[in-house]
């Protein structure tokens, strides 16, 4: 009968330990749920998503249908999207009431370009891209960056407490645009020929209108600006408590 040397035995033990660790890590990864569902589109598609914690990415694609993908951190979490006529609704809060902490749920939603988008989360980043519709609303109850890229919508709302807000798009005639943050930088990038009525307020006096400044603006010692750019066809309101407000030419 041969006896294993202590060195070989210790190698064997370390190897077994490593195998166990990698196996348990693999199991933890598998605990995440992935869902991916497709929904038929209609004429006036609207997506409403209420998340608790996690990122939301919405982008358009060239198909007349909606694809909803989600990575769900906890196996206790439930996501039950509902489609009513042309409206797809996902209410994580409602679906998981009484389940305690359900961790992060990260969403990716692909929509036809003319879809109205109304998304919110208690915590996490929101990104909406390439949407041309009646409404884009991105609301973060607490902290999370909001990035709206290549947006052409009649009504836009972007609001958070902590985090940056970036808007890149167009202001439609007769549209309303509201951007609000308590602590973060707000950057608005629009075409040079944009026409809008602006009310911008920042108590820390960090308002930079750049190319959109004109002598018609009235100001209260740099903390608030009110005035028209062009013929003031749309209405823009920007409020930031302790960050900057910057207008850039597209």
């Amino acid at each position, binding site marked *: 009968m041969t006896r294993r040397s202590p060195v070989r035995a210790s190698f064997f033990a370390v190897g077994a330990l490593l195998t166990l660790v990698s196996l348990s890590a693999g199991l933890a990864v598998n605990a995440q749920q992935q869902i991916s569902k497709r929904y038929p589109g209609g004429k006036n598609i609207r997506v409403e998503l209420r998340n608790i914690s996690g990122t939301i990415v919405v982008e358009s694609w060239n198909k007349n249908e909606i694809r909803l993908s989600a990575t769900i951190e906890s196996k206790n979490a439930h996501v039950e999207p509902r489609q009513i006529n042309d409206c797809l609704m996902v209410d994580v809060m409602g679906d998981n009431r009484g389940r305690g*902490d359900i*961790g992060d749920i990260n969403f990716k939603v692909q929509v036809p370009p003319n879809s109205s988008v109304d998304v919110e989360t208690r*915590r996490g980043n929101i990104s909406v891209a390439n949407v041309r519709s009646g409404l884009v609303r991105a609301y973060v109850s607490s902290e999370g960056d909001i990035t709206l890229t290549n947006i052409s919508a009649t009504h836009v709302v972007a609001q958070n407490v902590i985090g940056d807000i970036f808007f890149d798009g167009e202001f439609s005639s007769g549209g309303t645009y509201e951007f609000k943050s308590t602590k973060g930088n707000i950057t608005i990038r629009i075409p040079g020929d944009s026409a809008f009525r602006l009310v911008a307020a920042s108590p820390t006096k960090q308002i930079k209108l750049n190319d959109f400044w004109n002598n018609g603006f009235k100001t209260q010692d740099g903390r608030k600006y009110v005035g028209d750019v062009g013929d003031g066809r749309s209405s823009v*309101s920007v409020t930031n*408590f302790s960050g900057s407000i910057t207008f850039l030419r597209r």
Partner: protein
Amino acid sequence: MNCEQCQELIHDLVDGQISQRDEFTLNTHLRECLDCDSVRQDLAAIVTFCQSHRGEYQGPPNEQALWLRIRNVIEAENGTRKPVQKESGNPSFVSRWLNHTWQLSLPQLAASTAAIILLVSLATVVGVRRWGTEGVRTAPAPLEASNTSVNDRVFQRTQAINYWNQRVEMNKARWSPEMRETFDRNMRVIDEAVTNSLNDLNRNPHDEVSEQMLNESLNDKLALLKEFSDL
């Protein structure tokens, strides 16, 4: 009897206020005219439904005015020009005036238009002088009660904030540590905005920007508490 006369009498018939002679004439017409008979059946069905559901719905504030408008619309669609208040023996001046058909010549129309434009312009000028303010105007404050002092409004908001704060504290233990940290961090940021606005207002009690910021930050605080009280 023609259809127009018939449909006037149908109302009286359904209301049970028709004379025997009219009823006989009407019934004769209804037997011959399917359209009018259909109108009678519809109206009778509506009245029966309303009678059987009496008290289940709240009436509009001015029921008589509503009925007048409905009848006006129906009569306008039918092309009739009968006065609306047939059952009322002595129509009011307003109803007579409203139901009067105005036929204006071109000069009269032009003079009326000019008079309206003049009146609107005068009202605008007076309004701007009376209520217009110089300088920057702030957005309407979300906190109502414009006559109350800032302290009163803060006190009112604080009451609501305390209520929601208690609800949040009850549920906070269920949250993950990350969620608690997030909430506390955001609450501190909003509290800082509230404090800064209050300090600015103490330095300059009539500062519109500070007042707007105070209102908005208090509203944001309330919104944050409400959102997180659900978790």
